[in-house]
């Protein structure tokens, strides 16, 4: 894998390089960021597509893909006890893989689509059950992740630090005085 290849290219183009299919599940590996995600239930194609979808819904340039991969891991965990979820996600990815033009419809795997086309397809299915399932899982799994939330200024549990009484509850500096 060349260093010239961007991270996004690696992820999107990693169907063969980064995904190892083993039985029902798959492993998504990103050597550049040194993380890997193994799924037990979701296929490699579905897992990678959901990861891209999560990132496209709530993009932050300073977040690596490993945080979005945790959203996929959460869904995989839920899918272990909910086979209808697997079906919903597989079918949703199938829908996202449709390219609908004015005079024809054809298929390009979602993960292989250009980012512009991916965005267009997500807008097309905005509000569907599948879309809201993944959107809700992303809101909870991404912003509910304390390591991510800390980067946005969410400071989490404070009682074990004695609250904020000596840690800046009234430290606002920029506000003028009346």
């Amino acid at each position: 894998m060349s260093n010239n290849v961007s991270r996004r290219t690696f992820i999107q183009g990693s169907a063969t390089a980064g995904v190892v299919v083993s039985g029902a599940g798959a492993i998504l590996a990103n050597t550049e960021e040194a993380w890997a995600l193994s799924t037990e239930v979701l296929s490699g194609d579905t897992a990678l597509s959901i990861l891209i979808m999560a990132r496209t819904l709530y993009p932050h340039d300073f977040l690596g893909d490993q945080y979005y991969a945790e959203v996929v891991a959460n869904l995989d965990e839920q899918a272990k006890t909910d086979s209808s979820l697997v079906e919903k996600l597989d079918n949703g990815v199938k829908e996202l893989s449709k390219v609908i033009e004015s005079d024809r419809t054809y298929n390009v795997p979602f993960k292989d689509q250009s980012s512009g086309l991916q965005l267009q397809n997500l807008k097309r299915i905005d509000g569907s059950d599948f879309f809201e399932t993944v959107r809700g899982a992303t809101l909870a799994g991404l912003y509910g992740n304390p390591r991510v939330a800390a980067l946005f200024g969410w400071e989490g549990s404070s009682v074990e630090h004695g609250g904020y009484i000596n840690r800046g509850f009234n430290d606002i500096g920029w506000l003028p005085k009346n």
Partner: protein
Amino acid sequence: MAKKFDLNDDSVVVIIGSGAGGGTLGNELAQKGVNVVCLEAGKKLSLDDIENDWGAMFGKLSWVDKRQGTGDLLAGLPLWVCKTVGGTTVHWAGASLRFKDHEFRARSKYGEIAGANLLDWPIDPNEMERFYSMAEDKMGTTGTHGIPRLPGNNNFQVMEYGAKALGYTDVHTGNMSINSQPRDGRPGCHQIGFCMAGCAIGAKWSTLYTEIPKAEATGRFELRSESMVLKINHNKEGKATGVVYVDADGNTHEQKARVVAIAGNSVETPRILLNSASNMFTDGMANSSGQVGKNFMRHMTGTVYGTMPGAVHFDRGTQMAGIVMDESGHDDSRGFAGGYYMQTLPGFGLSAIAGNIGNMSVDSPGKWGRNYTREVVENYKNMAGMWLVGEDMPQEKNGVTLHDSEKDQYGLPIPVVHFEDHPNDVIMRNHAFKAGSAVYQAGGSKKQYQLPPFPSTHNLGTCRMSANARDGVCSSTGATHDVPNLFISDGSSFTTGAAANPTLTIVALAIRQAENMSNLLSQNSI
């Protein structure tokens, strides 16, 4: 030592619910020598169970038994109240404001308002002074009884600056039942945040660790947690005789009673009465007026978040210690009846804000995508937040009914809760949205988000007090008009909602009710 009463002991007062109404009434009665059995549907937590984690605490505290919301309400979660010992006093934010005189006389002061089922309270506001004072002393309310107000956090300072710049003058950190210094064996506030997830150090007043242990210490009070009430029994004379409930193991019991007091919050209280229908009370107990379950109010509410020019870190510190009171009077020139407050309130964590602004605010650049994350999520630490709370109009069409067919885990018909804004509520909310946004603009905010009501914690009016038996369910003491030994002891009894957060008034009324009830008991009148 906590007492155990026999199920057949028909000398006890049975209180249903252990929150602001039930917990207070129970302790007040026990202190006066009355024997009390308190049935609480939820589990008993300790301070060790309270975490600074919104999701975890929502799961531990919330009443999530199936309910159906209709009208403006969320179908699956029409309100946000608690099923735990201490009830919603575990979750409440601590704001403790007295009702104003005009709010006790809404019908006289506001006049006839189409579609509003307004009525004056059957209580003289002057008489409430003494009970408000006792409640404030009990709860350690800041700004009363010489108790200093809490210090203002960043979120308050942003509100204070903008409000004063606009010319508002009645701006401070409020009357909060959160200790600003150690009091009553509880510590002062550590500015933890997370007040509404439960106060992990017990600085905030909650019956869980104040009224209930004090009542137990009298030896005249028994708390039975995880005891879900199914119905109230009565005799041929139409007097309440006992309460049927299911315990944690699923066993059904009847606790005999001399008096029954219901404090289950404004959905469960009328639901119990409706579920207690009998040959004698075909429309439900205490319902000759037809007003049981009617006139449901939840306050005019709304939320404004403002993106400020610098960091606010609004999660730090006491969540609701900040108030603008200038709009709380009744002033016809604004185009609506009643008034409202602006109170500081942050969000409920990053993931809640990241979802709620997109899902609820028309000011948001959509729900997702690059513009959304840049404008909304990446400004999280710069956000200030306030809650708007004002008087809403009682309407007969808003209320609680029993579902035709769907049952809950106890075999009871699930409650259907219906609420629609009255036009007065909408006009007031729009006024409050503008005022709230203006406060942040005055502090340099370029972007504000106005969010419609969340599932409400203030739920009122479904068994209201009335001077005349045909207009309401109970008298000024909470005694039901139809059944002399059956009392309403929570916010269900409110004749109108006023603008203020309701807990202080619930507690004051419970103290008043305990005085009255113990007199009646000693006179053998009930």
